[in-house]
């Protein structure tokens, strides 16, 4: 049974031009112990999906889905209190800008105190303080921070983004969640710390059986660290399946375009040759195309594309396109 089962998730909001569907019938399915990547350009709605799962969207957004289940529990039917209990305990989220995700006027140590599971503390109250410090030390070492004394005494603006991100991760794993949603966790972090964070994710996944939903726009990260991916474009799922398969044989034109846009420096690039990219740009929310949203930009689009394509399955991966690249590959 999948740990996180999302079927036809739609997120809409009311604008002066009417109700706009920012995320249109997205399907995601994560199994226990799996690392899945959610890939897409900025503006494709990936962060919205993550926030909808966590339930932290504000009231302007309307979330609806056929199925939004975590471990069999329907998230949309929970009350606010029950939802809060689930968050932080079973599902945890790590954000894009770690420094601004920490309270700027509170020491890191104090914020870590707040995120400890106090109900596990079976110690008498005068020994609580020591227990808390031990726990925090253990957590910080687990995420790779050696100098825990210094870090605990500091304020967020005194630390680097890499360390802040590790602290955020430490806060989230205090409760031993089973699903960790990472929303572009390394975008603002320097390269050396990026590798450390990914190794940390891998460690959590292998040792603690934590499933990870890695949201990113960087294909390299996805290629190296994930087992399966879902590709989104403009609020619609476009393709999903195992990473290896998709990178070898993408079926959707958009995925193909994404893969082609990564420059291969092992081949010789012609002098002043154009880098391959899809023409046009991501449509704005006020002017979303009907049907398949890639329509105006897709090189293979024809009249049938004004109807939204259904999700089809072939060779172990799902895609939604009227004119997928299967036939080409089979014929070539």
């Amino acid at each position, binding site marked *: 049974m999948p740990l996180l089962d999302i079927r036809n998730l739609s997120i809409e909001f009311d*604008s*002066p031009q009417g109700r706009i569907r920012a995320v249109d019938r997205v399907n995601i399915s994560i199994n226990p112990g799996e690392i899945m990547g959610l890939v897409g350009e900025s503006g494709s709605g990936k962060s919205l999906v993550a926030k909808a799962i966590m339930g932290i969207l504000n009231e302007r957004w309307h979330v609806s889905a056929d199925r939004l289940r975590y471990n069999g529990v329907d998230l949309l039917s929970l009350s606010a209190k029950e939802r809060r209990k689930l968050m932080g305990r079973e599902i945890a989220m790590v954000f894009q800008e770690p420094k601004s995700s920490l309270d700027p006027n509170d020491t890191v140590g104090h914020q870590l105190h707040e995120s400890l599971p106090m109900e596990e503390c079976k110690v008498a109250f005068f020994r609580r303080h020591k227990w808390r410090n031990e726990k925090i030390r253990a957590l910080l070492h687990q995420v790779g921070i050696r100098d825990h004394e210094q870090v605990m005494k500091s304020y967020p603006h005194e630390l680097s983004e890499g360390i802040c991100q590790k602290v955020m991760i430490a806060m989230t794993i205090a409760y031993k969640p089973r699903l960790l949603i990472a929303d572009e966790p390394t975008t603002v972090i320097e390269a050396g710390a990026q590798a450390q964070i990914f190794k940390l994710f891998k460690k959590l996944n292998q040792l603690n059986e934590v499933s990870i939903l890695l949201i990113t726009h960087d294909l390299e990260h996805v290629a190296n660290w994930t087992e399966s991916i879902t590709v989104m474009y403009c609020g619609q799922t476009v393709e999903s399946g195992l990473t290896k398969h998709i990178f070898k044989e993408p079926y959707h034109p958009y995925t193909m375009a994404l893969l082609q846009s990564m420059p291969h420096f092992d081949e010789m690039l012609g002098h002043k040759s154009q880098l391959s990219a899809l*023409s*046009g740009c991501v449509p704005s929310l006020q*002017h979303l195309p009907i049907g398949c949203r890639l329509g*105006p930009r897709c090189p293979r689009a024809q009249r049938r594309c004004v109807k939204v394509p259904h999700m089809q399955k072939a060779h172990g991966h799902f895609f939604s396109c009227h004119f997928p690249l299967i036939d080409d590959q089979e014929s070539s």
Partner: protein
Amino acid sequence: MARTNSIYQEESIPSPLQQIWRNFLSYPVAVIGSWVFGLLVVASLIAPFIAPYPPHFQHTDALLVPPSWHPNGHIAYFLGTDDLGRDIFSNLLYGVRTTFGSSLLVTISAAFFGIILGVLSGMSKGLKSSILNHILDATLAIPSLLLAIVLVAISGQSLSNVMMAVGVALVPQFMRATHTAVHHELPREYVVAAKLDGANQIQVFFHVILPNILNALVVQTTLAISIAIIDIATLGFLRIGVPAPTSEWGVMLADGVDLIFIAPWTVTIPGLAIFVSVLAINLVGYGLQRAVKEGFG
């Protein structure tokens, strides 16, 4: 393949100014406030033509007549009369020019000088800016009413002196607001970009900074109008403002205080007039602030 920038040519995207105006119009309270404001401006212009009686004319046969809806009232004296027989409605109308009209004039001139000085001080850097800042701080510490009172005490009581005093007291506030707004804009990257493009100080100011500080300035102006109205009325109430024969709402209120038990309308009606005009301005100011914050949708 579409080659033009906007694929949807039939839709017109409103400019920021139009968008702010549209936002403003969608707040009913702000629109009501601006209607009242417009009404007051019109009233201050045509007061002499619509007032039923000359303002200081004493009707010796109609002293302390209550407003017309009271059983003892008379429709001829619509809002009643005071203890000297002066018609309150006519005095109120003439008072629109004194209290409201002069505060508009005062605010506009204070805005003119204050903004220019504020821009000069905001665009300056280093020691000059520091000194100007300190002088500003010192003048701002003196409450505007106090400054106005002292200036009137020095120069004597007359409408023009009151206007000048209130205006001088308002200039530091404009300077401060402009200075802060300009200072906020200067480190922005589009200003740096304009300078790198080769714009000199004046061009940078008019094309880059001014459009972005306009809304802060407009909000400050509405705030200043309400402060000016209250200052002029307070000065009148304390009898250190506009001298006796001129109709002014604060003075009318002060005159009514002695009669408060027997003729409460002499106090409530002028006070209501001040309240309504200040409320209207504040509603307009609030609507503008919110319209700008809502942004460009």
